[in-house]
């Protein structure tokens, strides 16, 4: 029988100090994805293995893992798309491990709460009407399924302890900033308090995003450009202060 060799990271932090990769062999099926192989292992080979999954359709963002060192959704990675004779599956290294492939991503909920909330213009007539042309930009970011692969691949989050919130959170701030009815500008907050300056535009977040959101081009760079307007561009700063003075007068 044709089989697929899978090497899965196993560790229970409650009893083990170090983790190890354990090899399994799973029957190969046409069109199978890595999640199918993992489910097979859990059902037939080792029920003690922990993994998290829900929709199996790339829409819930639960089955994030590092497959052959690339942060990916297990349910969207076809086995026949992977090179090499063995598939290596590891948990996301940027987050605390709960067990085996399951990580604790709850730190992201705390970060999301810190981003200033949607603040619409006062006295707007309801229902709110928004043109398609205006909602398109912020709608792209609504596709985010919060799989946190972008956070996992970001070298700033993985390797360095900084105050950078990470790509997912810049996407969140950009989706609010670019909302046509929102009145706040979060770029100054993102630059000063959320460590936007630590991002060096290396675009790994865009490469791994399963929803193909152009994280760097459409969220991070526009937020950086807005922050330049506020903190670095003397002409823009002068125009802005003049506008504010006029508004007060």
């Amino acid at each position, binding site marked *: 029988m044709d089989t697929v060799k899978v090497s899965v990271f196993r560790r229970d932090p409650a009893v083990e100090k170090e983790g190890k990769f354990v090899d399994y062999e799973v029957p190969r099926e046409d069109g199978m994805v890595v999640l199918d192989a993992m489910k097979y292992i859990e059902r037939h080979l080792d029920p003690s293995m922990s993994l998290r999954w829900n929709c199996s359709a790339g829409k819930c963002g639960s089955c994030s893992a590092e497959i052959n*060192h690339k942060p990916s959704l297990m349910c969207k990675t076809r086995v026949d798309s992977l090179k090499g004779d063995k598939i290596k599956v590891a948990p996301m290294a940027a987050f605390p491990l709960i067990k085996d492939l399951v990580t604790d991503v709850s730190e992201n909920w705390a970060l999301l709460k810190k981003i200033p909330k949607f603040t619409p213009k006062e006295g707007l007539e309801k229902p709110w009407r928004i*043109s398609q042309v205006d909602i398109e930009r912020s709608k792209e970011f609504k596709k985010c399924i919060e799989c946190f692969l972008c956070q996992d691949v970001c070298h700033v989050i993985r*390797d360095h302890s900084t105050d950078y919130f990470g790509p997912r959170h810049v996407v969140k701030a950009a989706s609010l900033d670019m909302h046509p*009815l929102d009145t706040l500008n979060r770029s100054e907050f993102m630059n000063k308090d959320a460590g936007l300056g630590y991002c*060096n535009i290396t675009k790994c977040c865009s490469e791994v995003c399963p929803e193909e959101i152009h994280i760097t081009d459409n969220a991070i760079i526009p937020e950086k*450009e*807005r922050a*330049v*307007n506020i903190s670095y*561009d003397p002409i823009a700063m002068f125009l802005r202060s003049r506008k504010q003075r006029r508004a007060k007068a």
Partner: protein
Amino acid sequence: MRAASETSLRHLIPPEFLEPNWRFWSFVMISILGTVLILLYKVPVFDGLTDPFYTPTVLILPLVVLFRLTCYAYRKDYHRHLFNHPNGCATDVRLDSKKRGYSGETGFFRVENVHRYFMYTAWAILPFFFYDVYVSIVYTGAITVTLGTIILAVNAVAVTTYTFSCHSVRHLIGGYKDCVNCPANLNKKNSLYRLQSRLNGHHEAIAWTSLIMFVFVDLFIRGMIGGVIPNIVLIHSGL
């Protein structure tokens, strides 16, 4: 994407040679080649064709270089392949990242925030490329379109496209606005912003194309001087 650590070459070849980084190394090679050519082997205006390295704008070349160096496309290249932060997106390509200090664009590289000012100087250089195309057409006193004219024109268009597909242009022509079709700002469809956004999506590829065009044009003109390449006359008519 395959991590270098999986191969036996891991300890022999540094990971930067195993990741696709041809754009960065071609930038380095072109910079060296360009400098050598400018300093050692000067090209006069030949057959009405001005080498793009020798337009009068060579005086502001350092500013144009700074425009490229602070460009969002090139930042990706050198942060990845020169400073290895990160070297590639495979999560354990280079295992020493944690040990090395990192300040991103908060320390020295804060200078990248004035990219748009270098862009303004790059705008100043653009008319000269088109002037060179014009000169190559009228230098005989008649209207002459040669293969060289076409190549100079393609180069001028490539460098213009690169300059105007910049992320800073995108911000300036509409990216800063949250709303273009609100009651206060009715029926502005921001088609320019949308067109520019489409170009901007290919900014990295355009950056490399326009860079390599310089060398191509330079080699073409040198080839003509050396008599290797004929400058084919396509159209010639008296005024």
